[in-house]
Every structure is written in structure tokens, then in C-alpha cells.
């Protein structure tokens, strides 16, 4: 290899990975971010309407736009895209699908009828304001919807009606679950990691094996195993009933609710807490603890003043990892979360797979990503201020 161009050679070596990350990771995220504010579908389906409404002053019924709508509807109908258009418009305002259907059917019979004479709905200025807004490819309404805020016809921002308010509560619930899972992981994982760091090689291998066991089984198998354990006629409840600790009718609801979500998530995520913490603990020289003991500190003081602060980077790393993974958890809540254990990712999946509202899914994803980025940037700094600067 030419000694004069080591940097170029090095660049060539990292290129496959950089390209992989760009294609497999950055590009989808960029697409998602874009989709949350850029939704050109209606604009593409109604290009003439869009042009006609760009310069509209927003009052009355724009006469020149009605012709454009007629032409757009006829073209969409001819190209088999009217269903899509009707669905998209209906999502912006409930009832528009029926209006589009009626109009298209009428136009098929009498192509040149004035829209306002086909249905009174076309005389509503609010409808035109909505059309003017939704035919713009750039939009903030997905992000607003993701915050349970909706835009009225005259452009004012109002809270979503109560029966449809969902996402803010769900974001808060997700954050709460993530915090709780992280806390439980910390309480269970810290002593476990310590036991691993303090034990001999054979016991350590066993403990490592046990904590990695969840990694070696599929998510579905794990969830199913937990269902067998936790359900009302599951192992735990049967045991409790057999021991007389709970009555036949008082069986505990351990799964298909928030409890189930948390139990299974803790199980799945525990390795992510234990492993970074273990590596910090294993790398910590014994001399610090010994120094503390030699200086007369009781083991509890040694733990609180020396061991805990020095292993704090491991706690922070593991905690952050678990928290951020929890925020995006999707399969586990879907399987064992029942109704109350659903998290924001389940809604993102719902909009991706079922309602096909990709704009809203992207907006929810964007907000989640922002929350994660914010945490990833601020938490370590906070942790640093609270604990260790060395």
C-alpha cells in the first residue's frame, strides 16, 4: 500500500460502513422527518385545485377553484385514484368521502355541472379553506395532531375533542413506563451486576449466561412464556390460589395490562442495564474500595460515597440505554400490554399498518425521536453535574 495515502486508504475502508449507515439508518430517519411535515399526496392528486387556491383570499367560494376541483376529480377518477383522494380528504374532515363520492358519481353522469349545484357542501367557505390548506404539500398539521391539537377551518389551533385526545397522554404514559422500567432495572440490575463483578469465574459465567438468556430466545417465545406464567390461570396465580394466598375470584391481573408490560419489558431490557454496568464494575480497581475500608469507612459508607459514585457511569449508561429502548418498545406491549399497557410505538405501528396515516405516524415518530435526542443529549450532562467529572 502506498505510504503517502494512508488517509485515503483508511477512508476507503470505512466507506462501506458509512454507506451502510447512510442508506439503512440515516435515509429512513430523514424520510420520516420529511414525511412529518411534507405530505404532497393531496397536492399531487389535486394539482389544479392547488394552483387555483394559492392566490385565493380566503373569503366566500372561490369560483375559479371549483372548475379546478372538477377537473382534478375527473382525472383522479379516470386514473383509479379517487378512492385514495376521498380517504385522504375524509381524514382531514369527516364526511368529505361521501361528498367526493356523490360529486364524482354526478360528474360521471353530467360532466359539466357546477359543484355547488351537485351538493350544498361545496358552498361552505370552510371547506374551501380546508382544501386550500391540505393542498399545500408542506404542513404542520401532522405534528399538531400528534400533540392532540387540531386546526379549525379558519386556521385557529384548538385542542382535539376529548374522545379523540390520545397522544399527549400516551407520550406521558410511555415516558412514565420507561422511567419505571429503568428504575426497576436499576434496582434489580445493580446488585446483579455487582454479584457478577464480585464472583469467581465459574459463577460469573453462570450469571452472565442467565442474564443473556433473554437475548437467545425470540421475543415471541419470551412473551408467550410470560403469558403462561402470569395469566389468570397461569403458574403464578395457580400457585397463589393453591397456597390460599388469593381467592379463586381474586386472581391477580398480572398480564394484559400495564403490569404485564412492565414485567416483561424489565425482563427483556435487564441485560442492557447489567452489561454496561458490569463492565464498569469489573474495570474498577479494588483499591478504591480497599482504600475506603482502610480509612475506617463502614461498608455502607464505602458503597454510598465510593462504590456507587464510581460505578455511576455504568448506571447512567445502562439507565439511558434502557430508558431510550423503553420509549420505543412496541412488540412487548402489543403482546402482553392489553389495553392499558399500550405505548406510543403501538400507535405509530397502528398508523403505519392499519390506518395508513403515514404522515401522522411520521409526526409521532419525529416527536419520539426528538424526545430521545433531547434525553440523550441532556441526561449525561445532568448526570455529570450530579456525580462524576473525573
Amino acid at each position: 500500500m502506498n505510504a503517502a495515502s494512508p488517509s485515503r486508504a483508511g477512508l476507503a475502508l470505512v466507506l462501506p460502513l458509512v454507506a451502510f449507515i447512510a442508506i439503512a439508518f440515516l435515509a429512513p430517519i430523514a424520510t420520516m422527518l420529511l414525511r412529518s411535515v411534507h405530505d404532497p399526496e393531496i397536492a399531487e392528486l389535486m394539482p389544479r385545485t392547488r394552483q387555483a387556491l394559492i392566490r385565493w383570499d380566503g373569503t366566500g367560494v372561490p369560483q375559479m377553484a371549483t372548475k379546478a376541483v372538477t377537473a382534478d376529480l375527473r382525472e383522479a377518477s379516470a386514473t383509479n385514484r379517487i378512492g385514495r383522494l376521498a380517504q385522504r380528504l375524509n381524514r382531514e374532515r369527516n364526511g368529505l368521502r361521501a361528498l367526493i363520492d356523490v360529486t364524482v358519481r354526478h360528474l360521471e353522469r353530467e360532466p359539466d355541472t357546477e359543484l355547488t349545484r351537485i351538493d350544498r357542501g361545496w358552498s361552505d367557505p370552510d371547506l374551501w379553506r380546508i382544501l386550500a390548506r391540505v393542498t399545500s404539500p408542506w404542513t404542520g398539521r401532522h405534528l399538531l395532531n400528534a400533540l392532540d391539537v387540531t386546526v379549525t377551518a379558519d386556521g385557529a389551533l384548538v385542542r382535539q375533542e376529548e374522545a379523540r385526545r390520545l397522544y399527549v397522554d400516551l407520550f406521558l404514559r410511555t415516558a412514565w413506563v420507561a422511567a419505571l422500567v429503568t428504575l426497576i432495572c436499576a434496582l434489580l440490575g445493580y446488585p446483579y451486576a455487582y454479584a457478577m463483578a464480585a464472583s469467581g469465574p465459574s459463577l460469573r459465567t453462570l450469571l452472565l449466561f442467565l442474564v443473556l438468556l433473554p437475548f437467545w430466545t425470540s421475543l415471541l417465545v419470551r412473551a408467550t412464556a410470560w403469558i403462561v406464567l402470569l395469566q389468570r390461570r397461569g403458574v403464578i396465580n395457580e400457585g397463589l390460589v393453591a397456597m390460599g394466598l388469593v381467592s379463586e375470584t381474586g386472581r391477580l391481573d398480572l398480564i394484559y395490562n400495564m403490569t404485564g408490560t412492565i414485567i416483561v419489558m424489565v425482563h427483556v431490557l435487564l441485560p442492557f442495564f447489567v452489561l454496561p454496568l458490569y463492565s464498569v464494575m469489573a474495570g474498577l480497581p479494588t483499591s478504591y474500595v480497599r482504600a475506603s475500608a482502610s480509612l475506617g469507612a463502614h461498608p455502607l459508607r464505602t458503597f454510598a460515597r465510593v462504590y456507587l459514585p464510581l460505578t455511576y457511569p455504568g448506571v447512567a449508561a445502562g439507565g439511558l440505554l434502557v430508558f431510550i429502548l423503553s420509549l420505543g418498545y412496541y412488540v412487548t406491549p402489543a403482546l402482553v400490554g392489553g389495553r392499558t399497557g399500550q405505548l406510543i410505538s403501538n400507535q405509530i405501528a397502528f398508523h403505519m399498518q392499519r390506518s395508513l396515516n403515514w404522515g401522522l405516524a411520521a409526526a409521532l415518530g419525529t416527536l419520539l425521536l426528538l424526545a430521545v435526542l433531547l434525553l440523550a443529549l441532556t441526561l449525561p450532562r445532568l448526570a455529570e453535574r450530579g456525580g462524576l467529572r473525573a
Partner: protein
Amino acid sequence: MVIACPKVSSAAVLCLLIASGPASAADALTIASFGGQYTASQSKSQYDPFTASTGVTIKSVDYNGGLAELTAQVRSGTVNWDIVDVELQDLDRGCADGLFEKIDPAQLPAGSDGVPAIKDFVTGSLHECGVGTVIWSNVLAFSDPAFPDAKPSRIEDFFDLERFPGRRGLPKRPHAILEWALMADGVTPSEVYRVLAKPEGLDRAFAKLDTVKDHAVFWETGAQMIQLLADGEVALSAAYNGRVQSAISEDAKPLKIIWERQIWNADYYAVVAGTGAKERALDFVRFATGTAPLAAQTQYIAYGPVRRSSQPLIAPAIAATLPTAPANFNNALAFDAAWWTAHGDAINERYAAWLVQ
């Protein structure tokens, strides 16, 4: 997409590479269906005989309904599925969106009794974009041991926690369960969709659902639903009749079906627009929706055939377990896919919000 591959681990990567390219190898078809018992019944009565007679191998893919995956395939131009098994509301919507090839019913074979296809298929089971196969039904099912004394028998009993205590299984989708909520609240079947279209009617349905919300366990797939019933996690659940019947007749689970006010629906085969194997796919659809394969399917799952000519070929014991049996069809409500297409968006959204709240 999952494509069957030889179980040689070293070949797995290669398989994935092959699988991710556009499908439709020279003599293969990829069919997406709902998996489990249902796909098994299709495989035994339709895929295997088709392969035996034409040599075309069929790759079976499971999906959970909905048009998301299909839309992505068609829009991106990488169509991997040749044929999909869809429900009517997805067929309607997908057809309007141009996701499916048109199918001319005149080209379907006549029934084994010579009746032309257009007359042999029951009303509504032929669509410009798809050919019906089976009639299946949304029913209520209960775990027999959960009710040692009086057994639930009506829709109203689902919402009567006092006389019939026990947890209720509800789907994560609002279809059928909203209709039942209104019927249990006193709306007659013929009025259900009219009432449900009004905001007050929708509120009324949700108010009825609220009465069981705290005792509800929600399921996503038919397999989950059966599991919940069989494990005794729920006492009474909204269910698909075919899955329940399989659990009863094949796994001897102590489950019972309530046919009263069943809400029936049909499944269709549709050919994906832009598939590279359109003719072969149409061949399959014509074959699979013939009299004999449809009749044969009832041996493996308790769904009724959409061809009238298939009825005489079905053993009486099996015929009695089908939604289409006269004793079961009493008081049945036809699922209104068009209504759901028109109103589904808002209701889906509200149901999702209701689930989480």
C-alpha cells in the same frame, strides 16, 4: 416478506437476497393470506391441488390484513405478492386505489352443476377486483367451564356482567363489536348502520362498550383470541367462527359459539396490480374458486363456500358448523364493508383513542 427457504443456515443470507428481489420466478406464485388454520385450509384444498395439476409452486406469506404492505409494494414498484386474500373493505378500498387487477367474472368456470359463475356465486361475492371464496362470521364464543350454570346465548349477555361474570375478549379493531354494542342496546339489525352513522349513535355504541371496558382483554389476531379463550383468560369473546370451530373439533377445547346475530363477511382473492405473473395468478384464482376446491376447504375450516354448487358436496356434519347453515344464519347481519369504507377512518381513530384512554 418471508419466503420458504431450505433450512440450511448458511443459505439463509442467500435466501434473503433472493427473497428481497421481485418475486414471481418462472413457475411460482406468492400468495398472502391470514396464516394459521385459515392458510392451512387454503393450502390443503387449493394450493396443493393447483401445484399438483399445473406444477406451479406456491409460496405462502402471512399478513394481518390491511393494505399497508400492499400499498408500499405497488407504489414502490417492487411487487412481491401475486395474490392476496382480502376482506371486502380492503378489496373495495384497494380497488379504488388501483392496487388490484380487474377480474372478469365471465371468465370464471361454471359450477359443477353447469350453472354459470355469475349465478353460482352468492350475491356480493363477485367484485370487479376480486373473487369471493368463503363466508366467515364474527360471532361470540365462550369458554364452557366459565359458565357452569346458565350459558350466555345472546348478544345482550356479552354486556351483562352481573348474570354472566367473567372477562370479555374484544378485538383491537372496531369492526363488528360496535354493531353488536348497538344491537345489545336495542337497535335492530336492519337499523344498525344507519344509527351508527350518526354521532349520537356512535356515542351510544361507545357508551355500551364502556360498560365492559374494565373487564376487557383485547386481542390482535385470531390466534391470540383462541389462546385467551382456551386458557380461560376471557370467559366470553368476540371471535371468528372458523378459528373457534377448529379449536373445538381439532383441539377439543371446551368452547361454544353463539350464532345469534352473527355478522358475516366474505374473503376474496385479488390479483395484485403490476405482478409479473398476472395470467398465472388469474389461472390460480379461477381454479381455487371452483366448486370442488371451495367445498373441500370446509373440511379444514368452518367457513361457508360462496358457490351455491359447493353446498351439496359438503358432509352434513360439517355443513351444520358453517355460518351459512340455516339454523345459524337466523338473525344474521351482513357486514357492510362499504359503510366501513366511508366511516372507518374516524371510527378507527376514535376506537384507538378509546382503547388507550
